[in-house]
């Protein structure tokens, strides 16, 4: 019995690991003095990006031809990554602010 239990547990845990996809993560990007840091991030589908705006200015994270997250002064905003790909984004109000997200499947 004692020998069986660990094997049974291992089987259970092993099954669970296969059934539940890897935990979704939140990737933080800080905005300070008109710059995204880090400017380049890698993520996977299902992850979220959280932009933390430390400036006393309104910014956005605007994906070219796609989603836009409004980031009020001293506030943060999130985006759920729903599709894989390679995305450039800018601040619509300050287009010299540039960032990049690589989303793996």
């Amino acid at each position: 019995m004692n020998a069986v239990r660990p094997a049974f547990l291992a089987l259970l845990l092993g099954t669970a690991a296969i059934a539940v996809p890897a935990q979704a993560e939140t990737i933080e990007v800080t905005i300070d003095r008109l710059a995204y840091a880090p400017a380049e991030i890698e993520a996977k589908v299902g992850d979220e990006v959280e932009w933390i705006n430390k400036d006393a200015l309104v910014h956005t994270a605007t994906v070219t031809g796609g989603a836009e997250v409004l980031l009020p002064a001293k506030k943060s905003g999130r985006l759920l990554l729903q599709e894989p790909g390679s995305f450039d984004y800018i601040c619509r109000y300050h287009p010299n602010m540039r960032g990049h997200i690589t989303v793996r499947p």
Partner: protein
Amino acid sequence: MTIRLTTAAAAIALLLGGNWALAGDKPTDPQIAHIAYTAGVIDVEAAKQAIATSKNKAVLEFAESMVRDHESVNEQALDLVKKLNVTPEDNDTSKALSQAAEAKRSELAKLTGADFDRAYVENEVAYHKQVNGALETLLIPSAQNAELKSLLETGLKLFQGHQQHAEHVATELK
């Protein structure tokens, strides 16, 4: 258009190479603070004129962001001069900038519709370009206080962003 842009350009030419260069000295921190603050106030005024006149969505959005950003930076500038116990000092460059802005405002007041939109946005491109030039070549290098210099450097990055935003809107209006 060339004529319309001349007044602002002349004022900033004065700022860049005029009296300071001739005098052979650099603006002091209290003068720099005054020039930077004045440049911000001018752009807020111009934006308020655009908000009252324009019906174009892109122009209105740009103007609203100018009011928001320049008011925010000027608030930070006022906090800083207070903290540093510096009294901004009026000077010929600030006066010339204000005079040029007043002339521009009167010119723009005669325009409506798409003519106003184009003239306003083109002036915003030119104005930010000139102010950025002044920041880079004169105001930032002349600033003595590290915190003032740092605020000016952030200001430069911000105004470069405004210039690109204005250029983008100008392309949309064509």
